[in-house]
């Protein structure tokens, strides 16, 4: 579309969806009010989430089988990249824990040309809104990752990210499960993209808490990452 993109036509919001029917429609309606282009990747939900997407103006891509959140993100990116005029890609969670104001602010940072990748961080203010145990685990995760230290990230596992076109073209998420967050950080650490963190706040609602990943899952993530195919 037009090149100044003030209308947000060049922004694509990628939302992986897995059994989120309770909140999905309201999240999508709010999102579509800010960003006209939204693609939902349904990862084999069994609760009518795809039907909820079809009631909105959001694009729907359905995985024929459940593949995992990382795979859904990559599918959404691949789909959005093929759409005409797409220049900025926002990764957004379906459970309503991210704020659209934050996403819009991050797109503005990317648009200003100050960064190729904009990541949300919950810890700009010391992370007062994050539950204590989660805070400890997340901080440890950043400190343990070499790429995270190199990029001086404060929050490696925030689901809110904005990619510019060249980054989206280059990134290949191969960790289908939850390890994709670490994979993205590691990818950025090995690349020359300019990465910027922007403070965001997360709404830890009852719903998002119940959907949130268990801390034990960190063990799975560490295992997957350490045995993955190197350099492939």
């Amino acid at each position, binding site marked *: 579309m037009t090149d100044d993109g003030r209308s947000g036509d060049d922004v694509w919001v990628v939302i992986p969806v897995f059994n989120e029917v309770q909140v999905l429609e309201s999240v999508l309606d709010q999102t579509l009010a800010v960003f006209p282009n939204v693609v939902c*990747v349904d990862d084999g939900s069994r609760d009518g989430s795809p039907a909820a997407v*079809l009631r909105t*103006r*959001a*694009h*729907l*891509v*359905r*995985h*024929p*089988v459940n*593949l995992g959140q990382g*795979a859904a993100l*990559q*599918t959404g990116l*691949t*789909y959005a990249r*093929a*759409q*005409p005029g797409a220049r900025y890609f926002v990764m957004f969670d379906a459970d309503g824990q991210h704020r659209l104001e934050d996403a819009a602010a991050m797109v503005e940072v990317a648009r200003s040309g100050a960064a190729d990748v904009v990541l949300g961080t919950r810890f700009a203010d010391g992370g007062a809104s994050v539950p204590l145990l989660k805070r400890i685990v997340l901080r440890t995760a950043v400190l343990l990752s070499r790429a995270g230290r190199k990029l001086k990230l404060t929050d490696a596992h925030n689901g809110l990210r904005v990619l510019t076109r060249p980054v989206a073209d280059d990134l*290949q998420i*191969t960790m*289908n499960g939850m390890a994709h967050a670490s994979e993205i950080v590691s990818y950025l650490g090995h690349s020359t993209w300019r990465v910027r963190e922007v403070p965001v706040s997360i709404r830890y609602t009852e719903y998002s808490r119940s959907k949130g990943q268990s801390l034990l899952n960190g063990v799975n993530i560490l295992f997957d990452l*350490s*045995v*993955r*195919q*190197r*350099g*492939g």
Partner: protein
Amino acid sequence: MLIQFLLVLAVLGVLFVFVRSSGAVYVQASKRIALVLFAAANIYAVMRPDDLTTLARMLGVGRGTDLVLYALVVAFMAGMFSFYQRFRIVDRRYTELARTVAIREAELVNRERGVTTRPVVSTGEGTPVSTRDR
């Protein structure tokens, strides 16, 4: 004892190889050589159990069969890791296939729903993921 040293070393070696392996040709080749050697050693151990017991004594293990058991544990671990990596490669191909199908179908569906403003020309192709055999 010598055997403890060797076993710990073998387990660490297996871990190291599978965490660091770059998928190079030599990894694949050495896996196969190891398999052949393991089979040959097994045949020898069955044919000459006394030699095995002598070797076990030298290493500080009581009986030859115990030595075979220890070797089996290490081989099992290596096999599991190898299988896991193999599985990951297959999983990657399977994902790529599912993704292509999903995107192709989605472009038809979304055009029919009228949410796409322009005709879409993409066929959902992406850069093929490298899924090297090994």
